């Protein structure tokens, strides 16, 4: 259910602008990996290269290798759609489909990809909503629009929608930045639970959050505005936050810049 990601020598471009340069790292299965770093340093861009969402933007392209358990996601014959089916994503702002009910939102991934029987679908929806800690709050109003939930509930609905298609990896792009502390806590608890089944990668601006939830942390930075972002350091989270080997990491974590 959970796979390892190996990235080597990855560059990502927006048209002529190089956004990240020469990123190499290994993301371990059944663990949470956090990306931290100042705004505009390419964390989200890098995250989006992992499930080939980067290339959705016109003019954007990627060079380098991303291996999912040894299989190159950027090989010429690979179908991007199938990559995204295996590597799910949760976005910064909750984005449930406004025309669909709560039930349909969770079922969307399966329903838009083919046929699933009604009883099977009921099971998947319940299981996913339970997995996202949302079932008890919405079980009586599954047919109501997903957009009617609160922000934190919407974000958990999006997580339920992402895990309903049973991906190997779950990418989360600042999933809590639009949420209040209580909803944030709910999602952090959820991540700790999901870690048993998924490889989780999370981008966050909140260093306490990275320290709380992640097993490993990568620090991204860029030399100056307009230059491409790079990985400065990656290590066990406990080491990164107590005894980083790079001066820049320490400066960023202690709040001396960024």
């Amino acid at each position: 259910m959970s796979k390892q990601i190996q990235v080597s020598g990855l560059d990502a471009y927006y048209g002529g602008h190089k956004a990240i340069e020469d990123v190499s790292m290994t993301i371990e299965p059944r663990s949470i990996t956090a990306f931290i770093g100042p705004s505009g340093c390419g964390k989200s861009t890098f995250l989006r290269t992992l499930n080939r969402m980067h290339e959705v933007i016109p003019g954007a392209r990627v060079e380098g290798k991303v291996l999912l358990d040894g299989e190159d996601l950027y090989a010429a014959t690979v179908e991007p759609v199938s990559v995204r089916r295996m590597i799910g994503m949760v976005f910064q702002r909750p984005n449930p489909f406004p025309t669909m009910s709560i039930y349909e939102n969770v079922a969307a991934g399966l329903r838009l990809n083919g046929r699933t029987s009604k009883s099977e679908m009921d099971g998947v929806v319940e299981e996913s909503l339970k997995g996202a800690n949302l079932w008890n709050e919405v079980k009586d109003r599954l047919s109501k629009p997903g957009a009617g939930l609160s922000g934190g509930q919407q974000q958990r609905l999006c997580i339920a929608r992402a895990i309903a298609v049973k991906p190997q990896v779950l990418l989360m792009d600042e999933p809590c930045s639009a949420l209040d502390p209580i909803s944030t806590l709910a999602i952090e608890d959820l991540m700790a639970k999901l870690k048993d089944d998924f490889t989780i990668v999370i981008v966050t601006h909140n260093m306490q959050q990275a320290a709380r939830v992640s097993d490993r942390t990568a620090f991204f930075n860029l030399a100056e505005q307009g230059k491409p972002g790079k990985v400065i350091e990656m290590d066990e989270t406990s080491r990164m936050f107590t005894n980083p080997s790079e001066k820049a990491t320490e400066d960023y974590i202690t709040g001396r810049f960024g």
Partner: protein
Amino acid sequence: MTTIQHISTGRRVKDRMVQGLVYLAFALAVVPLVSVLWLVISNGLARFDMEFLTHSMRNIGARDAGGGAYHAIIGTLEQVLLASVISVPIGLLTAIYLVEYGNGGRLSRAISFFVDVMTGIPSVVAGLFVLAFWILFLGMPYSGFAGAMALSILMMPTVVRSAEEMLRLVPADLREASYALGVPKWRTIVKVVLPTALTGIITGVMLAVARVAGETAPLLLTVFFTDSINNDPFNGPQMGLPLFVFDQAARPNDTAIDRAWTGALTLILIVMLFNLVARLIAWWRSPARGR
């Protein structure tokens, strides 16, 4: 250091004046609308009866009262329906290409430009084009279908423009959410983007329908006209409500003038009915329902 300031009398007066001007402009804008409606309703009600709605003008003498616009109502409904069947799919697909696939490339800019050009085509030119090409060059008979083709030329740019705007309003977030679930692009468009934009697209199509339902000139050149009922839009001259009004209003008798007013009233009612139905469909499909 700044202090809390109070609103000066000068600003208060200016505020009142601008407010007054806005109300005045609103009243001026409403006057023609209300007066047109009033005139059409008060003059049209006289002949708005069952005979008008169920009879044609066949065998109605020049000075006779009675007669009706059944043939014209049938014609208008069929022509507008056919025009929609032609122009809505083409227009919608064009809009989808422009928004989802064009990416501002050369082809999409060229299409955009020609859509703008089409918006400016006078309706009589659309009629002349169909007359010259379909009827004179290809030798086809006058028919409701020829009229529908002329109307669809007029509808298409409106449909493209309004659908394009509505599709652009769909947040990129939703497309990305769908892609991230491993849904292919075309299914994302069909299942996520189009339903989200549906209400707006329907409104746009209805505006286009309302615009062409009242066109007279292109029909005059392509549908010709007749006093008899012709249910077949593909063969032989038909009638349309605008043509009926045009024809009756040109006659010298009061009975004909009355029929013209009632024809105009019927046309307005039909367009309103279309709008109502479209709004019902949009409401029925809208996510706000059931909240």
